[in-house]
């Protein structure tokens, strides 16, 4: 099983806020810090733009893990956006857990524009955790499977 898991490359969707985390991802790239190629970044104006439906939709369309990155609390470009994100995602992730969906499949991480290394290590760590869970079976839409 562990061998299989090493082979298995999970599909990760990362919602990154335009002002901090996306720039952080950029920095990780320009510093040649490696993170898995199966992390698909979706740029959003602010982490609080991420509607819970986006997260479910990502799982429906084949994501095995969804991570949401934004500015550190207090640093939001729009002053308070990420405070709302924090509450919303706390509640949503708790609900997903309640429905029996593995909680390691979802994560919120605050990554600033200067934290290229944190971005890379976060993605590496998240991808590893999700890989150990195997493919997402509990929030999949069979119609989207090949």
């Amino acid at each position, binding site marked *: 099983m562990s061998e299989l898991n090493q082979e298995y490359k999970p599909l990760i969707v990362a919602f990154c806020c335009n002002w901090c985390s996306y720039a952080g991802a950029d920095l990780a790239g320009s510093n040649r810090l490696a993170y898995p190629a199966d992390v698909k970044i979706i740029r959003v104006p602010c982490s609080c733009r991420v509607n819970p439906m986006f997260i479910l939709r990502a799982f429906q369309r084949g994501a095995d893990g969804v991570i949401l990155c934004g500015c550190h609390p207090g640093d939001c470009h729009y002053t308070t956006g990420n405070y*709302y994100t924090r509450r919303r995602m*706390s509640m949503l992730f*708790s*609900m997903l857990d309640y429905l*029996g969906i593995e909680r390691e499949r979802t*994560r919120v991480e605050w990554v600033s524009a200067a934290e290229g290394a944190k971005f890379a290590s976060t993605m590496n760590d998240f991808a590893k955790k999700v890989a150990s869970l195997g493919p997402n079976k509990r929030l999949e839409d069979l119609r989207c499977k090949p």
Partner: protein
Amino acid sequence: MQTVNTQTLIERASALLQDGTVSAVLGWKRGEFDYDMTPAVFTTAEELAAGFVYNDFCGANLSKYLLKKTREIQGKILVFLKPCDTYSFNQLLTEHRIHRENAYVIGVPCSGMADIHSIRKITGEGIARVELTEGGLLVHTLYDDAPVAVSYEDAMADRCKTCKSKKHVAYDELLGEEGDVLDSHRFDEVAKLEAMTPDERFAFWQGELSRCIRCNACRDVCPACTCEKCVFDNPDSGVENKAPGGDFEEKMFHIIRAFHVAGRCTDCGECSRVCPQDIPLHLLNRKFISDINKTYGEYQAGETADQRPPLVNFTQNDPEPSDVVKGGHDHA
């Protein structure tokens, strides 16, 4: 058994119609049987006398009808609200969804409403007549010669067994005695689910939600679901859907619906009452309520009409999602 009866309410409503305080009355209309009342509007004392009824089967929460009624009515509409309904009423006021000046609220005490489904579980199908007596209900079936006695406790709707409050939080006039907020143990069922393993929880919800037929009754009855156009009806939302196309769609619908009312749901229990497939939808809403209470402090939606719901609020020291979703069990 309810402490106020049909006659008391008709008399009061007729008087208010007569003196011009109100121009219409929102209540319940007698049905074919003893238990199938339909919410209805009455405009004259004759109409009230002919069809108005109030008894243990008048469980429907009338507050949502005020959305439309208080906007279209000339004058005031009288509405009878049970304690739990007044929370919905307040919440609707908070969100500026009803015109307060066009509503005249009479709070009616409630000792718990009976539910025909609870009774059927005891007596079986074929209920010819239900007699309300001092000691309980006497259910006459089509098949047994002797009526079956059912206690009020057993006949009660599930939501009433964990009633959170007998206190009216909004009214213009109150009939009977004011009650208290109760220590209801309504989160026990949530805690029971939380104590399960993720696999068990998944199996439980998969079993429940897979019965969903997407009739939208839960949404349409919900006093917190007041959007002019629901995302699930909006072709531009990308999630518009009519039928459960697969397991995913049902989960998506119910998670998102519960999320949209999180912090605004007063836990009136209408969603579970109307579900034709008997899905315990209130357990989703209660999970949010319980999480909000634990994470951001006790909050009861609708307690007053000027609260800021917790999900459109924040503090700088809120816990991180990773700290909130903790405990439970590790996945194998």
